[in-house]
């Protein structure tokens, strides 16, 4: 986490946003840094019964009950043992009615990049390989591809409604 530093890959002037990137199964993903509330080390959670497996449980974040989503399980990747670099990124998402807080478990955080809006490409249709819903765009930085995520889609109301139906 200490290695997080800002790298200017673009000249100032154009519309650009900062993205925090993290690693998940060797790939680098980015989220809008304004949505990031904090980064925490992995700590035990309280599991909630009758919820999908990607919801690890809830934690107490200074008095608020915050759900924690395992992003690997969410993306249907192989689960790994949580290690010392495993972190929880606490994000603010805009739900259907109001903004909510949620934490995502990732393999580790990597960098903060400035990315111009014009450099963000629309993701191509990738078939069944990965659910395109979560992807907001793709950006290339120093020959690396970064997948920019749409944080609002991680726990969508559609998902929750589907779960509700399942439980009921």
């Amino acid at each position: 986490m200490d290695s997080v530093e800002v790298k200017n890959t673009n000249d100032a002037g154009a519309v650009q946003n900062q993205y925090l990137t993290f690693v998940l199964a060797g790939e680098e993903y980015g989220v809008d840094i304004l949505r990031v509330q904090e980064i925490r080390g992995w700590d035990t959670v309280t599991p909630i019964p009758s919820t999908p497996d990607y919801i690890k449980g809830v934690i107490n974040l200074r008095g608020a009950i915050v759900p924690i989503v395992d992003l690997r399980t969410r993306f249907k990747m192989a689960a790994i043992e949580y290690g010392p670099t495993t972190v929880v990124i606490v994000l603010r998402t805009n739900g259907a009615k109001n903004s909510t807080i949620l934490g995502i478990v990732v393999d580790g955080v990597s960098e903060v990049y400035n990315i111009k809006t014009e450099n963000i490409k629309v993701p191509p249709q990738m078939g069944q390989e990965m659910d395109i819903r979560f992807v907001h765009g793709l950006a290339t930085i120093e020959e690396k591809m970064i997948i920019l995520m749409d944080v609002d889609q991680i726990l969508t109301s559609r998902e929750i409604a589907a779960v509700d139906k399942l439980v009921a």
Partner: protein
Amino acid sequence: MSFDMSQFLQTFYEESFEGLDSMEGNLLNFDVGVVDAEKINAIFRVAHSIKGGSATFGLKEMAAFTHSMETLLEKIRSGERQMTTELVDLLLQSVDVLRAMLSANKNGADGVNIPVAALKSRFDELLKSGDTPAANPAPARTGAGEADAQQTAKGKSQHWCIDFIPRMSLFSTGNDPLRIFRELATLGELETRIDLGKLPSWDDMDAEQCYLAWQLQLRTEHTEAAIKEIFEWVESDCRLDIKCIDSAAGAVAKTEVASKPHPVETAIAAEPQKATDDAKDSVVKEQKSAPAESASIRVSIDKVDDLINMVGELVITQSMLGQLGQDFDMSKLEKLADGLTQLERNTRELQESVMRIRMLPISFVFQRFPRMVRDLSAKLGKKVELVMTGEGTELDKTVMEKIGDPLVHLLRNALDHGIESPEQRQQAGKPATGAIKLNAYHQGGNIVIEIIDDGKGLDRDRILEKARLRGLVGSDEVLPEDKVAELIFLPGFSTAEIVSDLSGRGVGMDVVRKNIKSLGGSVEIKSETGKGSKFTIRLPLTLAILDGQLVRVGEGTYVVPLVSIIETLQIKKKYINAVAGKAEMYRLRDDYLPIIRLYETFSLVPDQRELENGLLVVVEAEGQKAGLFVDDLLSQQQVVIKSLETNFRKVTGLSGATILGDGTVALILDVSSLIGAARQQATNRGRPQAA
């Protein structure tokens, strides 16, 4: 001096609604024929404050209306008129009208059909007809203020010179000279001059003091009394000198004053009178447009003082502990323990007082009932006396806001279906006047509200007949007495259909029960044919804190609400029965309880799978019992309820979460949904082919 008035608007609405409530209460208690100056004054004050407030906020129609009302009340107050039943009715109707106007304004609804003009003209009529040619003729004042303002210019006006020198403390009484002037301006042409002579230097000025004095010139055809009336509220706080200068005299020579004369803008402009076609009978339909739960709360000052004291103590304890911590050695261990005990006590007291802030006496709900009973019994031709006790019982504001409607419904039912007509009552050997008792008291962590009537009670045979017709009860099933009464809470039972021929209002008893249940409460009914019914509502005092029993299943800690626990026992194998192969029942004395294995419901890894090695927590919800199989009982403690829905969603079987002393999250069990799910499962197992 223009600033945003809208910030005070909310307060005005709240105060006005409260004022109207008290006005209504006073009117209902009014004993016609007895001159009760105090009550009349109280009623008058409300009308006056609403008038002043509405004029300040530019609610012209309301100001004009209250003005007429006030004029009439003034006559009663001065003894010129007698209070009659007719007048009480009229005033009660105006309370309704004002309420409707206020809520229409508050919700921004426009063009609502409120029979303001009709009522207002009745006031005016009454005023004209009853006017004795006393030394105080104010016929023009019976009209609305705006009419006068127009007429004044033409009519022969007199010139008044008013010296208004308020005391320094004027502002502290909440009076605003500007408002007074605006009101004066409605009487006629007003010129104000301000005297800044007493204004101290900037450094010595206290912003809360009034250093100003005014000299007012008013041209009006109103009497001195009318002018004096406007100053009524500040009379004791000022030196007031009202002189009549000959109307012919022109402008008074301008004395040296710091500021220019500046005509106060006319607050009340001409208002087109509503056509009399809406002058039907003055039945005001309550505005149903989104009655938003009010977001503010009025707290009595002693509760706040309490809180401040408590915080003071907490600070002292904190500094004591801080000092101890700076150079701590083992010799001070006892002191530390003392300090910690004190801290615990302070925290608990603080918590209690904070919770008390949200608590309001239940009279806030009760006070609207006398009116309702009065109107409804008149409509139904029944004689009913409403007795209310325990109005001072306090409960949480949120609970209170939601209990109102169910109570209204139960009370209406008691009136509609419970109490008989006077003739029937006399035939049954009962007094002609029926009695409905409304009682509230605390019991444990609950508030209990009872609605007792001495009417005819529930007609069990007809209820049972209906239930059989609807297939809710098997045709040859025999139900115990109290179970029959419970039937009326089932959905699909419209009260109107069962007990009387009066048309239903679309809300059944099932809704009442659902509302009460959503507050974590319960409702019971006891009824005796011919003697009356008794509804008992039990509600938790607050929704924010819960007494919980912590239980352990595997590694998880769960909270069971203490109110739903009946007992906890060690399981004896001989009492376990397996019904229909799978569903396990436990025989507890004469009862059979379904066993809910929590680890199964929640897919956990428990310590114990053998029933006799664990514990059974016997819980009850909505009259149904079940046993929760857990590994261990932990401590009992009060927990603060946190919603899971804020950041996530509702989870079946859980009512929320809480944070334990060590910072971890524990989930709170929703006993009623657990029992419901278990029962459903049991029935599904019972008929495997059904799926």
